[in-house]
């Protein structure tokens, strides 16, 4: 019942939105982790978009890559890749892949969404374990985490009132999670390479133990047509950190 309500809410909120995501957009972030009150630069995160054509369809390939800076590689090497192939207009995912390597731990996941988006065929492989395949049902509006972030950028937040929320349902680790995005108003922040920018401040909440605190997971996206995420602050069980835009092209 709760899921149905969320689904209806989602359809009415975003169902008629159009994509504003351009192909060949590249956003580079510096990821920092809070250690004893000081931010230590740990990794580089790159968000890319690219058009991929098959014989039948055109897809927008959205990818997120995280790589630790070389000085960290000998201590805790991270090479994470999250990617999704979506419809260029609706941003509905068709194929999602996650390939993570974090300090010796590795995991790969592949989700193939059915045409109506109501089921997923997943293939998962964890380090030293055999590959497992599973098919499971999901709600028609369920999307992966990457397409959710991009979908967020298509929402017209200027029509939102402070405190108003939008909701999504995402699939992660073969489970569905409702995600709530609360609009917290407009703020002018230091947007890294873009200088000081007026931004929509958004708070992300999900019913998962992977995110901690109330209004501690925040995204600032520019209050212009490009809606570029310039600053992301996160609070996870092992600490807090941030991602700050360090380079941008194709926006």
């Amino acid at each position, binding site marked *: 019942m709760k899921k149905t309500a969320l689904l209806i809410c989602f359809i009415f909120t975003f169902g008629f939105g159009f994509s504003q995501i351009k192909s060949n957009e590249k956003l580079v972030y510096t990821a920092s982790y809070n250690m004893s009150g000081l931010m230590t630069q740990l990794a580089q995160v790159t968000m890319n978009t690219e058009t*991929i054509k098959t014989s039948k369809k055109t897809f927008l390939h959205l990818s997120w890559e995280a790589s630790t800076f*070389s000085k960290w590689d000998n201590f805790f090497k991270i090479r994470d890749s999250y990617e999704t192939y979506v419809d260029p207009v609706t941003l509905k995912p068709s*194929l999602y892949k996650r390939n993570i390597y974090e300090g010796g731990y590795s995991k790969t996941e592949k989700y193939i969404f059915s045409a109506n988006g109501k089921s997923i065929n997943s293939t998962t492989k964890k380090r030293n374990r055999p590959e497992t395949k599973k098919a499971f049902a999901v709600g028609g509006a369920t999307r992966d985490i990457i397409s959710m972030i991009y979908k967020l950028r298509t929402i017209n937040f200027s029509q939102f009132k402070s405190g108003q929320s939008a909701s999504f349902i995402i699939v992660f680790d073969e489970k569905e999670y409702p995600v709530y995005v609360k609009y917290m108003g407009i703020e002018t922040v230091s947007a890294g390479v873009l200088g000081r920018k007026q931004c929509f401040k958004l708070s992300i909440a999900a019913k998962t133990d992977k995110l901690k605190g109330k209004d501690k997971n925040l995204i600032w996206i520019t209050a212009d047509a490009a809606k570029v995420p310039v600053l992301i602050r996160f609070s996870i069980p092992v600490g807090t950190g941030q991602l700050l835009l360090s380079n941008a092209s194709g926006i």
Partner: protein
Amino acid sequence: MRKLYVISAVFFAVLGIVFTILPLGTIAFLPIGITLVLSSLAIYQSKFNQQKLPKIILFISVLTFLVVIGKVIFVKDVVVSDKQFEQIKVESKKEDVKDLEGL
């Protein structure tokens, strides 16, 4: 009191060395700064013939301080090209296109 300063200074000096080796950036200044203060206090509290160890600790803290400054100035935050990771990406993309053709 002198003993407490010396023991604490040794502890923070070791911590400072570990932080200097690890890529923790300016965080290393915390234990190094504490070592500088504690070793200076230990020298002040020591008789002339007892000053050798606190002076060594002070020297180590100054040295680690300079190493951290050097690292902050000269070691840039870069991601090195990872051939294995790049190869996985290329192969993965080929596989993705095959999967997408079947949809």
